[in-house]
């Protein structure tokens, strides 16, 4: 997860481990950076399928060309984001679309100062287009905290609840479609959806929390609460 809980300078050591053949090191780097890369590409392309493909290609490039990463010229996060951004632009050009205008923050690595990012892009000759102003620091911090809270809530959620809420919000499936996909009774899907939603709303803070707590929700037969 890209949430600042690791020392970015440690990335270089992990890349060395990976270059020596450690798949565990590759997984560690994926865990650290994939979420942020996916989010950045999704913001550029508004297409989850493209974002998935770009993440795969980016980490394949990392694996194949680890030796070309030079920690003296920039962080691994910046390197990976540059690869991902180029791949995303290639795909958008291939289908005749322009990249969405995004703020500089979307082009920066999580550990990169916006001015550093601008310098990096300018040196490479990248086109940096204008867009609506980025959020002010306080708003950006709040948004980051919200994302972090939601991701923790998702991680702590029982698997059956996580499944239904992801199908609902990520794949835009209706309750009936989720029931068909998972082979669960519709009532079970509804209950699990509501419980998952309660958890996520509670994670967002008191101003978003539901009035009723989980105790009000029925528990499907055979399930522990």
């Amino acid at each position: 997860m890209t949430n600042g809980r690791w020392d970015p300078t440690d990335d270089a050591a992990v890349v060395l481990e990976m270059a020596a053949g450690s798949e565990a090191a590759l997984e560690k780097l994926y865990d650290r950076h994939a979420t942020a890369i996916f989010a950045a590409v999704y913001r550029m392309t508004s297409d989850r399928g493209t974002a998935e493909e770009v993440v795969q290609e980016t980490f394949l490039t990392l694996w194949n060309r680890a030796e070309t990463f030079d920690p003296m010229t920039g962080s691994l996060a910046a390197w990976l984001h540059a690869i991902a951004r180029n791949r995303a632009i290639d795909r958008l050009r291939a289908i005749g679309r322009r990249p969405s205008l995004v703020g500089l923050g979307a082009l920066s690595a999580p550990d990169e100062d916006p001015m550093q990012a601008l310098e990096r892009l300018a040196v490479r000759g990248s086109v940096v287009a204008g867009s609506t102003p980025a959020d002010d620091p306080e708003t950006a911090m709040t948004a980051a905290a919200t994302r972090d809270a939601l991701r923790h809530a998702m991680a702590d959620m029982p698997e059956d609840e996580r499944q239904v809420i992801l199908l609902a919000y990520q794949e835009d499936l209706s309750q009936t479609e989720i029931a068909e996909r998972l082979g669960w009774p519709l009532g079970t899907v509804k209950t699990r959806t509501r419980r998952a939603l309660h958890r996520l709303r509670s994670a967002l803070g008191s101003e978003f929390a539901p009035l009723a707590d989980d105790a009000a929700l029925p528990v499907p037969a055979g399930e522990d609460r």
Partner: protein
Amino acid sequence: MDHEETREQLELAAVEPGGLDRLMAGDTPLAQSVAGHLAGCESCTAELGRLRRSSAIIRADLHEMPPADLKSRTLAAIRAEGVQRPLVTATPGVAVMPLGDRAAASVTDTAAANGSPTAATRPRRTRTWSTLALVATIAAAVVLSVVTTSLIVGRRVDDQLAQQALTIGALEHVTTTTMTVAAQPDSDHVQLAGVTDPALDGSLVYSPGTTDLVVVATGLTEPAPGYEYRCWVEVNGQRERIGRMFFGGDLAYWAGATPAIAGTSSPRRFGVSLVDLSAPTLDAQPVLVGSD
């Protein structure tokens, strides 16, 4: 409709795109009931507002989260398509080679066939590779791997032992697959011969019915960084990638599903080529070839 029923309908609508707007349109009996309750209930109306805001945040955030299985798919793609590195897993003894990896086997390289005339006309070797001979060769590679590792001392011994466990696990898989494929009524053996180096030798066993295929070769040495040996099959002049050759002991091998060998009566030609990963193509001159 009471508070609880109303909130249930609101929550279920909130997770569907445009669901709350549809519910508020009031054009169904259920929607009219909800609207009727909201008109006289301040707390449920406030709840509707909170739901709208929170659901929008959650939807936007979850759309930016990668699917949970993307990690396993990415790792599988790297195993199938990435350059060969001496893979080491966090769990010694768990094989991570892409043996039987259908994704790898199904990747098509549309490069035109370009086998050398020498290779195309080279007679098949008279030496017969029986299933037992294949298995014996694989067993010898396992023994070699064990002996080599037993001589290793120093701080890298743990890594080497983990690598040995992987190699043995992979070779066991190759052995098992060989026995399974050879037991199929439609199984066929193909002898592979070195194109320019007579020291190279190999064998291939496959079943068009199950599409499982095993190829082993001796005499090859692990390629330099940036290169890999790839096994391919050619049918009607069309080459398709089978997979990347792995190394254990002095044996190079690949085992797994190969859809390209299914359902055709056309002659098949098999080969192994050294591929430059900076410009990967199966057009490269084969080092081993054979036909059925």
